[in-house]
């Protein structure tokens, strides 16, 4: 059993991996609480809907060897998810769906007299494009009058990044990947144009928490400096707070629920002010693709039908047109990677609507998310999480080799390394797309040609079949290593 690198915050239990199994240890106290949570009608309902992850308490005899060493009072087994993903990899629409799912679950739990301990976006995962809440220990009994302790975390990890992208048209991905805790209200308020402060949603959900937070910090400093002797965070301050805590004014449950509903409405109505990009209409109006489209479609369909991969990876998935074909032909589930946020959003919404097992992610294959956080292990690197049986990389290699100056042999090596079988498309220099890339720059790629391309594949895998794409000089290769 290996403890998950990100599972250290909650002292009442941790998540462990044991081979392919996902196990959660519970302290004696957490075990008693968990039994009550499990029996709650709202929890049962959320689980039945698939909004909350299932879990089964294991009998002692079912414990894997070595489990006793960790000293748990009980072990819960959860279904393993095909691929763990992080909010900084989710396109806007996926983060929005995750935020709404979090609020809906919370509202449902409140109805049943339960609540959530925190509001971490990392507690949401996707099966296909369906969000599911995975932290079983976050669910606990609601105490009348209590405050929403996860409010600030919810804003940082859900609302603020969404607001940034919606209002400014700037992706939150880089900021989020840089600070795993998300974006503070204070920073966001400074980034948003002042005129947006007049929007009621921005005022209530961003500016107000930001200003109040600043006010609280300032007044705490003043109080500390005025001879009260209790520096913020000191034992004296803690004691004073604990003493005062007994007399706090309770928050009515209806007001608690209204806060959640208000955020829900704000998030639901966000619209992204996004400039048109070169790729968002790529699949729609690309004439040369139309010529060879049938060949490509047949190639992908045959490949997916032949291999029936459990998990397929679509590198450069765009709006997921080929993904859908692969799913129809027999792929179990697909993870798509792309950097065009408009296309990713379209892909995500289409997958949600048609209920296919497809999750498009924002990821640059030349710069995948690293292993990071506490001890560099809190959030693992993207490649270690992508356990694909097959990969398709259509119209990708020229972006890497020519667009990014990456050595062609390494590009092929990297793609073939992603899965034991796959399709890689060669796009020649004569191609209009490559010509656009080379426009205004020196051609420093004398060795970029079909012969080199083929030889790089052959050095690493076996070419199962290949096909020329009519109307172009492109070639599709299917490999097996």
């Amino acid at each position, binding site marked *: 059993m290996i403890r998950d690198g990100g599972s250290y915050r909650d002292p009442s239990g941790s998540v462990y991996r044991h081979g392919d199994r996902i196990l959660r240890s519970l302290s004696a106290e957490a075990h008693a609480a968990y039994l009550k949570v499990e029996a709650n009608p709202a929890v049962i309902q959320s689980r039945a809907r698939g909004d909350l992850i299932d879990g089964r308490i294991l009998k002692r005899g079912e414990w894997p060897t070595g489990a006793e060493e960790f000293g748990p009072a009980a072990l819960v087994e959860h279904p393993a998810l095909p691929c763990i993903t992080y909010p900084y990899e989710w396109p806007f629409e996926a983060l929005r769906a995750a935020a709404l799912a979090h609020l809906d679950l919370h509202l449902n739990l409140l109805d049943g007299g339960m609540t959530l301990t*925190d509001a971490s976006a990392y507690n949401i995962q996707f099966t296909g494009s369906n969000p599911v809440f995975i932290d079983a220990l976050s669910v606990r009994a609601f105490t009348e009058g209590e405050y*929403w302790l996860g409010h600030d975390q919810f804003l940082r990890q859900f609302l603020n990044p969404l607001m940034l992208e919606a209002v400014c048209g700037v992706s939150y991905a880089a900021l989020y990947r840089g600070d795993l805790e998300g974006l503070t209200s204070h920073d966001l308020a400074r980034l948003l144009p002042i005129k947006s402060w007049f929007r009621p949603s921005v005022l209530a959900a961003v500016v107000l928490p930001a*200003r*109040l937070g600043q006010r609280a910090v300032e007044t705490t400093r003043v109080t500390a400096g005025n001879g009260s002797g209790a520096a913020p965070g000191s034992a004296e301050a803690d004691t004073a707070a604990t003493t005062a805590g007994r007399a706090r004014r309770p928050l009515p449950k209806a*007001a608690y629920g209204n*806060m959640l509903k208000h955020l829900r409405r704000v998030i639901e109505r966000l619209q992204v002010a996004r400039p048109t990009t070169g790729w968002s209409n790529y699949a729609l109006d690309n004439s040369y693709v139309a010529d060879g489209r049938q060949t490509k479609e047949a190639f992908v369909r045959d490949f997916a039908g032949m291999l029936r991969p459990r998990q397929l990876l679509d590198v450069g998935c765009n709006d997921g047109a080929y993904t859908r074909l692969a799913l129809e032909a027999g792929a179990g589930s697909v993870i798509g990677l792309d950097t065009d946020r408009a296309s990713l959003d379209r892909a995500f919404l289409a997958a949600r609507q048609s209920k296919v097992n497809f999750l498009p992610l924002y990821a640059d294959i030349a710069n995948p998310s690293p292993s990071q956080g506490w001890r560099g292990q809190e959030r693992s690197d993207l490649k270690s999480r992508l356990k694909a049986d097959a990969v398709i990389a259509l119209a990708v290699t020229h972006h890497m080799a020519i667009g990014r100056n990456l050595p062609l042999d390494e590009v092929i090596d990297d793609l073939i390394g992603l899965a034991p079988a796959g399709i890689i498309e060669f796009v020649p220099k004569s191609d209009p797309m490559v010509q656009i890339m080379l426009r205004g720059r020196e051609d420093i790629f004398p060795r970029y040609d079909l012969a080199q391309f083929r030889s790089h594949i052959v050095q690493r895998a076996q070419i199962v079949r290949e096909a020329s794409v009519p109307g172009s000089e492109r070639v599709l290769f299917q490999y097996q290593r």
Partner: protein
Amino acid sequence: MRVNQYLSGTASVSVVTFFMVTGALAPAHAYLDPGSGTMLLQAIIAAVGGGAAIVFTKFARIKSYFQKDSAKPDAERDQSNRDPGKH
């Protein structure tokens, strides 16, 4: 800003409320830093009996009613424009 003026007048109340709130965390889930701004915001909501959340909600709806919004694919919003009497 009005809220700020209100707060500076009642700064001591705010500080007390802040400590009251942050100090009231049950030990079992004290591993999460609740954040000062949101706790103060909730203290204000609690002080006015949940009215603030309702005010924000209503204000947002009134605003969206008066807003001439060209980008409006949202069916729900169309409906709220057609039938303002419901709010």
